């Protein structure tokens, strides 16, 4: 059994001039400081079936079974 991996980090000096930021959105993060861990998920679903070309019809109810309306 080998010894566990040892990681020693020395944080150097940080000096930032100017941050020009358009947006932080959809469960993202901008952190000026220290943290233990960052875990960010993003689920984005735009499949081809998301585009429906059909006469005006309501979207299906939760118990309908089908995810999309058949065009």
């Amino acid at each position, binding site marked *: 059994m080998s010894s566990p991996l040892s990681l020693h980090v020395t944080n150097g000096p940080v000096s930032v001039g100017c941050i020009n930021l358009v947006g932080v959105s959809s469960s993202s*993060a901008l952190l000026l400081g220290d943290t233990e861990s960052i875990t960010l998920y993003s689920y984005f679903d735009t499949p081809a079936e998301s585009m429906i070309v059909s006469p005006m019809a309501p979207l299906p109810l939760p118990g309908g079974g089908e995810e999309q309306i058949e065009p």
Partner: protein
Amino acid sequence: MNRDPRSTTLLSLFVNTVSSSGVVHLGDGQDTNMASRALAVQRAIANFQDDEFFFESYPIFYLPQPVPEAEVPVRFRSESPWPTLQVGCVYALGVSSSSTFRVGCSGPVQGVTRIKHIRHFNNLVASPAGTSAENRDYSS
């Protein structure tokens, strides 16, 4: 973990808009958990008749999320001989949709966003110009 968290000096901060559960946090803190769900429907003709938008209809909103696990044990040690993070000015236009902007130290940060897009058009065939709603045949 880092036992001596550093401090941050910020010269100036400008944030135009904070919306949709966005957070601007100045100072230290503990765990940060963020979650956001959106059902984005783009339609040629609006339907105001009844409520038809349910997160339960789409698997993306209830599928389990994979959790990355640390497989290798690591003996981690860090030190910060320079105790201050120096930042000049920050200009941010927007912080939105369960996102966070923090100046300071924190514990674990976790965020989940699930977005489903639906586009619903009516008649794209006879539309040389304009939107499908403008080219709709209202005579029938």
